[in-house]
């Protein structure tokens, strides 16, 4: 029952958010995509949280009607574990802590750091070089693009995000996302000051 309420909520809010932006033409496909995406994401997090696949494997490991499925599900569970806990066992802290007591932290070798340093220095050269060419209105966009690639390397390797757990990536990404919201809506105001909306 609660699932029905939940999904109806999703669909209603998707409709309400996307219709004003995309109009009634584009909205249905966007809404359906978004709703399906949300459904998939939710189902995934339910599986992870309640260990549905793990429990199924446990209950059915000793043969029976579902045994051909077991290897497939085991692979799926391994993939999920890899996504959820790439480096450290965040969720296992309450149970398997003896195993992790002395910290199996992933250490990036110096060679990788040196490589990233060289890429960043090269990136700086590219940044300055590209700035000498005038792309007109695209100047800022291209400069930001190069900067973002450099930033990506700093984040992934110097700041260890590539080997960190998903949540820290989500946390950082959300910061950028909300910054984009600030830019988008302020720009939506400032650059439409002159236009008058005649009618719908």
């Amino acid at each position, binding site marked *: 029952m609660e699932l029905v309420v939940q999904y109806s909520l999703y669909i209603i809010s998707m409709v309400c958010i996307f219709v004003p932006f995309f109009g009634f033409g584009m909205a249905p496909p966007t809404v359906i995509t978004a709703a399906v995406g949300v459904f998939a994401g939710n189902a995934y997090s339910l599986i992870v949280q309640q260990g549905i696949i793990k429990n199924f494997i446990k209950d059915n490991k000793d043969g029976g009607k579902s045994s051909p499925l077991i290897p497939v599900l085991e692979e799926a569970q391994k993939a999920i574990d890899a996504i959820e806990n790439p480096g*450290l*066992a*965040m969720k296992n*802290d*309450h149970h398997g*802590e003896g195993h*992790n*007591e*002395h*910290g199996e*932290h992933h*250490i*990036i070798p*110096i060679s990788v*750091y*040196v490589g*990233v*340093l060289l890429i*960043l*220095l090269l990136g*700086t050269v590219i*940044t*300055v070089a590209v*700035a000498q060419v005038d792309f007109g209105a695209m*100047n*800022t966009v291209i*400069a*930001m693009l*190069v*900067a973002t690639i*450099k*930033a990506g390397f*700093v*984040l992934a*390797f*110097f*700041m*260890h995000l590539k080997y*960190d*757990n998903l*949540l*820290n990536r989500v*946390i*950082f990404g*959300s*910061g*950028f996302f*909300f*910054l984009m919201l*600030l*830019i988008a809506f*302020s*720009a939506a105001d*400032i*650059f439409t000051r*002159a236009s008058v909306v005649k009618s719908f």
Partner: protein
Amino acid sequence: MSIVKTEDGHFHHAHHFNSLNHQYDSAKQGVWLFMVTEILMFGGLFVAYLIYKSIYAPIFHVGSSYLDVKMGSINTIVLISSSFTMALGIYYNQKNKPKQAIIALVLTILCALTFMVIKYFEYSHKIHLGLVPGKYFSNPEFQQKVADFVNAMPIENITPALSDVEHLKKIAPLYFGFYFVMTGLHGFHVIIGACLIAWVTIKTANNQFGAEYYTPVEGVGLFWHIVDLIWIYLFPLLYLVG
């Protein structure tokens, strides 16, 4: 201190955590959350800068020609290298090699100081020329250059915002307002970062870290990399794209 190194060289975690790992993960998450706030704070400045740049493009174009690209590039290289040495500082702590860690961290501080010295030269040059934010601005040559640039623009590119050349001359110091606030706030964070790095260097020298516990170094490292990150965006926007 919640982390206590006992005589046998082991670390004990704070009592409300389950293990050292638990504490490390939580601390890291806390630092990342704080970095989000730094991004949003500087981000506000970037938003304002981008908006004004598109409205008053000539002012920003002429203004950025007054910035020394060479000094800016050197500063960029200095900061990127300092990010590298900071990562090394963490690495050597992870490997239980405090002596190399100290060298790496001291190099990072030296890079930070180099950055501030170069910044000092840039600032003093501008202050000398009177290219400072609004109230104290005194460089009519800059204002005239802006006017000349606008007058030379083809007529179809003159938006309503750019039509009053006298007004544009009056508001031209806006560019240096942005320059000083953005680089100033960034420079302030460089100084804070240098102090934090000095703090962890001292703790490393006192053998307070090891492969089991180096969380403060990593936390400071994350902060320092964010400072570098912000400069990676600041440099092209201010110095190059005008």
